[in-house]
């Protein structure tokens, strides 16, 4: 099942319509995203490389993207801190659950 690989980046769109463009490499840290993007079906996400999250707000989504990159850094050896504001903890966890990260 050949599907067109969008050139190394994907676009994540938040509830408010903000678009975050990140590397595919970073995105697939989330299992959900990985499945979505490489599913053997003709879903629009696979085709276009764009994923909409109508239920994830922008700050949360932003934090998620930051997380992806922090994760990549860690796997390369750099041990930095990942700071999370306590207020967004709950929502962040919901998103994490949703994204299977």
């Amino acid at each position: 099942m050949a599907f067109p690989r969008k050139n190394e980046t994907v676009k994540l769109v938040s509830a408010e319509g903000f678009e975050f463009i990140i590397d595919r490499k970073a995105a697939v840290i989330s299992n959900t995203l990985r499945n979505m993007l490489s599913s053997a079906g003709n879903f629009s996400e696979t085709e276009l490389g764009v994923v909409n999250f109508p239920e994830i707000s922008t700050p949360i989504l932003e934090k998620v993207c930051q997380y992806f990159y922090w994760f990549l850094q860690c796997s390369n050896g750099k041990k930095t801190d990942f700071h999370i504001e306590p207020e967004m903890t709950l929502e962040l966890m919901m998103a994490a659950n949703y994204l299977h990260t």
Partner: protein
Amino acid sequence: MNPAKKKNFKIEPFKHKVEMDPKYAEKTWKILEDAIHEIYNHNASGLSFEELYRNAYNMVLHKYGEKLYSGVVQTMTQHLREIAKIIEGAQGGLFLEELDVKWREHNKSLQMIRDILMYMDRTFVNNFNKTPVHELGLNLWRDHIVRSPQIRDRLLNTLLDLVRRERTGEVINRGLMRNITKMLVELGTNVYQEDFERPFLDAASDFYRLESQQLIETSDCPDYLRKAEKRLNEEIERVAHYLDSKSEPKITQVVEREVIGNRMRLLVEMENSGLISMLIDDKYDDLGRMYNLFRRISTGLQTMRELMTAHLRETGRQLVMDPERLKDPVEFVQRLLDEKDKYDRIIQQSFHNDKMFQNALNSSFEYFINLNIRSPEFISLFVDDKLRKGLKGASEEDVELVLDKVMMLFRYLQEKDVFEKYYKQHLAKRLLSGRTVSDDAERSLIVKLKTECGYQFTSKLEGMFTDMKTSRDTMQGFNATGAGAEGNEGPTLTVQVLTTGSWPTQSGARCNMPTEILAMCDKFKMYYLSTHTGRRLTWQTNMGTADLKATFGDGNKHELNVSTYQMCILCLFNQADRLSYREIEQATDIPAPDLKRSLQSLACVKGKNVLRKEPMSKDISEDDTFVFNDKFSSKFYKVKISTVVAQKESEPEKQETRQKVEEDRKPQIEAAIVRIMKSRRLLDHNNIISEVTKQLQARFMPNPAVIKKRIESLIEREFLERDRMDRKLYRYLA
């Protein structure tokens, strides 16, 4: 994702709008249900994965997982029922293809559905012990399609039919077969095994049973084997191409059982083409094929071995007991060697040097060689013939080869001491008449015998060689003293001094030698005794030879090579031209049988009759008269007239030798008994017999009755005693 460090903060209420009432659930489900429909109808493009995933996620999160799950099951089942109808409707050959296509589509759809429902799979399924989506999909497929009543049998029959057609030579679509069997495997090994493999094996079993029945009636053994091999390879190939590899051992087993296993007996025993005729005709290829095929069956090789052993023993027995063959011992042994070579080659080329077959061969040979009690004698005669003239001019390797073969036959003998006796006799004759082809060959054989049987066996033989050498040295010394030749007219003497223990004992022969000879003999005796004191010399006149220069009528001069006896006889004719048997007997004092034999060679052999006999009959009688044959002529200057050739023994001689052997065995048995009892102290009758047999079997097989007698003799001589309590127990007396 690691939550941040715990801080005291207030958890703010959800910012999400969470409306989760049944109606919402219903709506969400509807969305998903539609999506599934679309997927099954190949309209999935345009759908948003995220939306569906989110919906499924929400349902599960808000505890509507059960509804979701059962809904999925229902929808899929519905679709599969439709698909089933389509497949059932397919005509004839398209049936399998439809099935294959639909299966692939189903897999794809299933994968998509699983991806969407990943959250449910992860959480709901695990928590409630439901079957995960993928497996669910396979199970539903299995239940509604593969095992649906209409499809199931049709599928099986189609597959089996295709296999059957391929067996009869048709070409079928292997790729399609492969996909279908793969599908069955993916549905679960028990599906594959029950729905397909077992009936497949049964059908194969029936097919091959029938086929082998037909074949065995029409083809001969090699042909049948060839076909069997072909079928076997076919089936293996079939499995490799479109069946699950686990089926390979099972199907090969079926083929082996039906085609070979059940027909084994028939095959090997087939008239004119079975195992026996293959062995006789040296059919290496066919034998190799049979070996390879039979190796697969547990009792296959055993059957072959048994038959081969039986056949070998029978042929061997006939060979050995055939009176015709027994007339020429050299031929006899050569035939044995040829048989051995033949079977060695068969085992090497066709049976991969299988040790068990080698053992069967050895045991058969051992069996029938010992059936004929004259075997040891014959083998010794064979060796004698080879060392006398057979190996003349042969290279060293050839000599070694022949000797090794002889050794091999020797190993089969059970009565090795009989062989030793004959070999000693023959060797003595060879050495004394100077007739051996190669000294090195003789020594080489002695070394081999020593390796095989130990020093004891060959010590006397080596003694004989030493004597010959010593004699040569002695002669040199004797001649050096100038007492050897008395000018040209006198006789020249060559003496071999033999140590009595080493050489085969002969009864002391007497004979009156002509005076000239006597004088020489005395001179030598004096010389010898002067150098070696304390020894006694006795002339062995029955073993010597002489070269005589004779002048016949017309000035014919010939040199005659004769035995000592014959020399004595002929010298008498220096004084008289005509002598009667009795006169000769009186004058020479030679024992009667030897005299008759000597006279026979002198007078009755055509072309070598130095004497003429009256009357001209073949046999010597006591009334005959002998006349010097003036008219003797021969092509050669040197004429050999000798009776000292090693021959097959006559009956009385045979008896005599056998008796001597028996006598020799007695002390050996006794020595063995004493040895055993000394170490064991107390032993019962049966154990003694078995121990003694074990110790002595390298030389000969002792007879239990003889052992018993020896024990009794030892008891009489107070080496052993019987236990007072138990009559069967013996004790060693120090």
